[in-house]
Structure formats: C-alpha cells, structure tokens
C-alpha cells in the first residue's frame, strides 16, 4: 500500500468525477442558445427566463443521470460559501456600476466610460461571459472551463472586428459547448453504467 495518499488529488477527483457528465456544458449551451434565438427574434429578455430556469434544469438532469450512476455526494460548504460570496460581490459591483451609470446618464448625459463599453459591446459581453466561465472553473474545479473562457474571449474580441450580429457568436459558442457536453455525457454513461444492485437494498 502506498502510504503517500495525495489528498489534493482525491479532492480533485471527487469534484471532477461529479462534473465529468457534461451536464454543466449542456445547461450552459441551452442558455446560450436560448439567448441567441431570443436575440434573433428581438426578445432577449426571454433569454433571462432561460437563465433563471437553468438551475432547475441542471438539478433535474443531475438527479436523473448522474446520481444513479456515481452516487450522491455533498461537497464541503466552505467552498459553496466562498462562491456565494464571490457571486454576491460581482452582483453588487454590477448593480453599483449600473446605478452609477444611470445617475450619471440622467444628470449629465451618457458618460464616456459607458459609451466606451457600448461602443465595444462585443468585447464587454465577451469579457463578462469569460469571467462567468472563470468563476465556474474555480467553483467546480474544472479546468476545461478555463478553455471555454479563453474561447469566449477570443471569439468575442475577434467578433468585434467582424460585422456579424452578436447572436451568431452566441450560437457558435453554444454549438461548441453543446458538442463538448454531449460527448462528455456519452462517455460518462458508458463509463458509469447504472449499478444492478444497490447497497441500500441489502
């Protein structure tokens, strides 16, 4: 028996095996696709509803596909608290920036920094989505999310120099992430078939 047990590796394995089912990717792709379609028909607010429903969608599929195959695990709460704190700070920063922009706009016209963000909206959106992926990479300990962040940033920064509408890039991003998710899901189902007997039934 090798006494040198690598706790970091065990922890990483617990996280990655729980998230190697591709369901996170499929959920993100569905939200991105919905946004793209809703932008195409000029109803982007409907995309927001898809975003809100994403959590239930994710939890439902996870319960249906992942838990019967790899079992149930509750990850430590400290990490969840840290993530909630980061999300809260990001939300507050966004809200303060929004209020600041609103006050400045109503008192003395659209401020320069806001005009800058609007002028470079492709880069602004790209960076915002990339930050969300980075947060996801940290939260779920999944290195592939860094790749999605890089892909998003590259795609949207590149998109700034091209003339295609925003929803084209969202659809392309959604397609790539969905393909990755479906591939992972197929591999996961193959790797972890449903057990025929359960310990609890004994």
């Amino acid at each position, binding site marked *: *028996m090798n*006494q040198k*047990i690598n*706790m970091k590796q*065990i*922890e990483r*394995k*617990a996280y990655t*095996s729980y998230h190697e089912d591709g369901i996170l990717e499929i959920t993100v792709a569905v939200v991105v696709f919905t946004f793209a379609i809703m932008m195409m028909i000029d109803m982007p607010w409907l995309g927001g509803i898809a975003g809100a429903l994403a959590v239930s969608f994710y939890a439902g599929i996870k319960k249906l596909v992942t838990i019967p195959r*790899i*079992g*149930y*695990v*509750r*990850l*430590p*709460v400290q990490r969840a608290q840290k993530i909630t704190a980061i999300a809260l700070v990001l939300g507050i920063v966004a809200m303060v920036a929004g209020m600041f922009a609103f006050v400045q706009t109503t008192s003395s016209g659209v401020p320069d920094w806001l005009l800058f963000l609007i002028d470079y909206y492709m880069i602004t959106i790209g960076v915002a989505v990339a930050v969300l992926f980075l947060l996801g990479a940290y939260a779920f300990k999944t290195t592939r999310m860094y790749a999605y962040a890089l892909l998003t940033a590259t795609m949207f920064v590149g998109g700034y120099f091209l003339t295609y509408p925003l929803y084209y890039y969202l659809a392309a991003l959604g397609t790539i992430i969905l393909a990755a998710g479906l591939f992972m899901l197929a591999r996961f189902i193959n790797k*972890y078939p449903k*057990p025929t*007997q*359960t*310990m*609890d*039934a*004994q």
Partner: protein
Amino acid sequence: MSPNKANDDELGAIPKIDKIIHEPARLVIMAHLFVVDSADFLFLQRQTGLTWGNISSHVSKLENAGYIAVEKEFIDKKPHTTLQLTKEGRAAFQEYRTNMKQVFEDLPE
C-alpha cells in the same frame, strides 16, 4: 528510565499510529470522506474501486470506532444511506496524517 519508555522513544511516532485507520481500505474510505461533506456507498465505491462488501465491513468498523456517522433515510420511497466523518473521525484522520508524516521524517535517508 524504564526499558518500555526507552523503547517508545526509539519507535518515535509509530506507536501513535491509529490501527483502525491504518488498514489500507479504511484509510482510503477515510481519505475520501475527509475531502467531502458526506457521500453515499455508491459514490465511495466509484471513487475507491472497493467492492460493496468490502466497503460495508470497513464502514461498520469505522462506525463502531465512532469515526463515521451512518444515516439512513428514504428518498423517493427508496432507502438511502449517507456516510459522513464525525468530528472525532476528522480529528483522528488529521492526527493520523501528522503521525505518519512524523514516522517518515524520522526514518534515516
């Protein structure tokens, strides 16, 4: 100094090693439960590669030692068993790690 005391000094941290945790399968179970909040048998089986019978017998020993809490509940009318390290189990595992490190540090090159 008594002969026993002298012997203990020579052995360093070895006598402090917790024999319940030191068994390979139990060590693996403890290590996996240490990094999560709680998990069920299936998760442990997938992570450790141990058979269910093996997990079951070792979990019983760890439960008897007070290192693991076993909680049985019904989810969607199906029985479900959740395992969690107790406070004592967490402390014992931490102590085991410290002692093992000490044992290897004390060994000559």
